[in-house]
């Protein structure tokens, strides 16, 4: 197996127009980081809006922040941190065919953690609806600006959830395809790409957690 990697031309992971799997991997790595920069800018629009409104309505954002559920938020943050640690192991292991099974197990574990996150998120959303935290006529808080906070709460968390769903789909696909073709799994740049994407989803959540769940605690 190691020999196959030294002569990369025969790699089953090689795609047109590449002649060399190492170059191909470098290209995917660069493309992925450019994409992640793009994704950061995508979220930056939301964070900019949040920051501006928080500077305009500090008190309302403080009070509204206290209405979010820190238990759900905190546990979900921990889950995502664990999942990205798990994901960090994958590319380090996947390139050794002997460790392929271990890497794929880790992929499944990360996907499961991601799903756990989504399930908790679902419960949290249900709870929020019950408490009338959806902006509108029967919104729970009266103070001006609190609805803006929750508008950002819903949009930030749901767009993040969409990213996570895409991440879970990518991870699952990689695990299944990897099981079918272990040789491809050891070579393909898709492993790194998926892991990078997963990392981004966690990075975004880290910031979301801080700005959404932590304000307004402890008076």
């Amino acid at each position: 197996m190691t020999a196959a990697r030294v002569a990369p031309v025969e790699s089953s992971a090689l795609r047109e127009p590449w002649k060399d799997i190492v170059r191909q991997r470098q290209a995917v790595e660069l493309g992925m980081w450019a994409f992640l920069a793009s994704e950061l800018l995508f979220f930056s629009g939301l964070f900019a809006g949040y920051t501006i409104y928080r500077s305009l309505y500090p008190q309302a954002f403080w009070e509204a922040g206290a209405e979010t559920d820190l238990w759900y938020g905190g546990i979900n943050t921990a889950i995502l941190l664990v999942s990205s640690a798990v994901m960090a192991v994958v590319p380090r292991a996947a390139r050794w065919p002997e460790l392929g099974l271990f890497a794929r197990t880790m992929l499944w574990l990360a996907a499961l953690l991601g799903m756990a996150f989504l399930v908790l998120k679902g419960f949290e959303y249900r709870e929020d609806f019950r408490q009338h935290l959806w902006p509108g006529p029967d919104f729970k808080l009266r103070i001006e600006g609190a609805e803006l906070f929750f508008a950002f709460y819903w949009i930030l968390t749901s767009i993040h959830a969409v990213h996570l769903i895409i991440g879970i789909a990518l991870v699952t696909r990689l695990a299944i395809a990897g099981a079918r073709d272990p040789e491809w799994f050891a070579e393909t740049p898709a492993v790194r790409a998926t892991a990078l994407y997963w990392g981004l989803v966690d990075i975004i959540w880290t910031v979301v957690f801080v700005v959404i769940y932590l304000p307004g605690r402890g008076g």
Partner: protein
Amino acid sequence: MSGTTQRNDKNMPTIGAIVRRPAWVLLVLLIALALNIGAAFLPVSPFLKTGFHLIVAALTVAFIAFIFMELEKKGPTIHLFAGSGLVWIAILFLLIFSDYGLRP
């Protein structure tokens, strides 16, 4: 760009060796998370608390990017692209606040 580095190390690491470093970092990050949550309940000014939260978040992000996502092993080009996102976010924030911060 250093690319992937596997060609030089012919010796396959043990699972333990692979897992060790991410596990330690995870431990640190979980402690940071606990600290961050704990700090939110301290009876100090919101401004200080928010500042602390953001610093901890920034450190968490740095750990995820550099160690979990292996940015530490990458060359200047990748660093440039990873950093460009942050620079452009800084441009957005800086100039958008030239309006909101300077309104009479």
